[in-house]
């Protein structure tokens, strides 16, 4: 019984490779294979600061964390209250602005999700994710 289960399992494992490879080929140009966020969409704290007033900061963390502290001048824009916060945020944009989105740390997902939605839904082009997020900002500003 065990050997049969193993044999059948191996067949299923092998079968699943076929559509997976096909899908991988189909998506080959749409996926960043080396980093979850393409390096072209990341920005370091130093780079973002060097943009000065051209940079507009977006805090993708939950409301509570934003209230406690945030990058000076940052706008709160998280997925919990997306429509409401987006409506407040958009009037502050101008074509020369570069959007820098951050969340709590390197491991959080919120910044890349918000950046993606800003590109897809608000049709913004210059949207970057802050490398290391809020933690890195705090570390650099100690």
């Amino acid at each position: 019984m065990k050997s049969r289960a193993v044999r059948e399992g191996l067949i299923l494992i092998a079968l699943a490779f076929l559509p997976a490879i096909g899908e991988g080929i189909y998506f080959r140009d749409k996926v960043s294979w080396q980093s979850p966020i393409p390096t072209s969409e990341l920005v370091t704290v130093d780079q973002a600061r060097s943009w000065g007033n051209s940079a507009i900061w977006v805090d993708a963390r939950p409301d509570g964390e934003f209230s406690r502290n945030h990058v000076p001048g940052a706008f709160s824009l998280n997925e919990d209250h997306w429509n409401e916060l987006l409506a407040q945020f958009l009037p502050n944009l101008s074509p020369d602005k570069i959007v820098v989105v951050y969340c709590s740390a390197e491991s959080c997902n919120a910044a890349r999700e918000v950046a993606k939605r800003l590109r897809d839904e608000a049709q913004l082009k210059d949207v970057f994710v802050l490398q290391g997020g809020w933690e890195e900002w705090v570390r650099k500003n100690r």
Partner: protein
Amino acid sequence: MKAFWRIVDLIVGGIFVYAGVIKALDPVRFGLDIDNYKTLPWFVSVRFAFYLPWLEIFCGLALIFRCLYRGGLSILTASIALFIGATVAARLRGLDITCGCFGHASEHWSFPQHMAVDLSIFIALVALWFANSRQRAAVPQ
């Protein structure tokens, strides 16, 4: 009783096919969900994101059609046990994870909700193992 276990097969198999299809439709998002666990480097997570949904679909179909049944059951039982372990470990490490198991539907599930669903599926799979073994033992060789 046989009919009852057949229904369990169909429900559990259907759940895995559904979950697999949702993830196969958006492998990049699933890759990000795997990456959230911070246990694998991205280049592995993204490759798994293309592969695992199809494995889930094939194993789910194996349960539904009772073809390669024990192989499918073994893989699904092992993978859900692994997944429960990874979820608990991530939780202990303080990671705020989205499992992405059922796409957007499960996006806002709390940790206890995730655990309840995963443990129910795990128990159903283990029960199917025992039911299958008993049915086979009952059949004269």
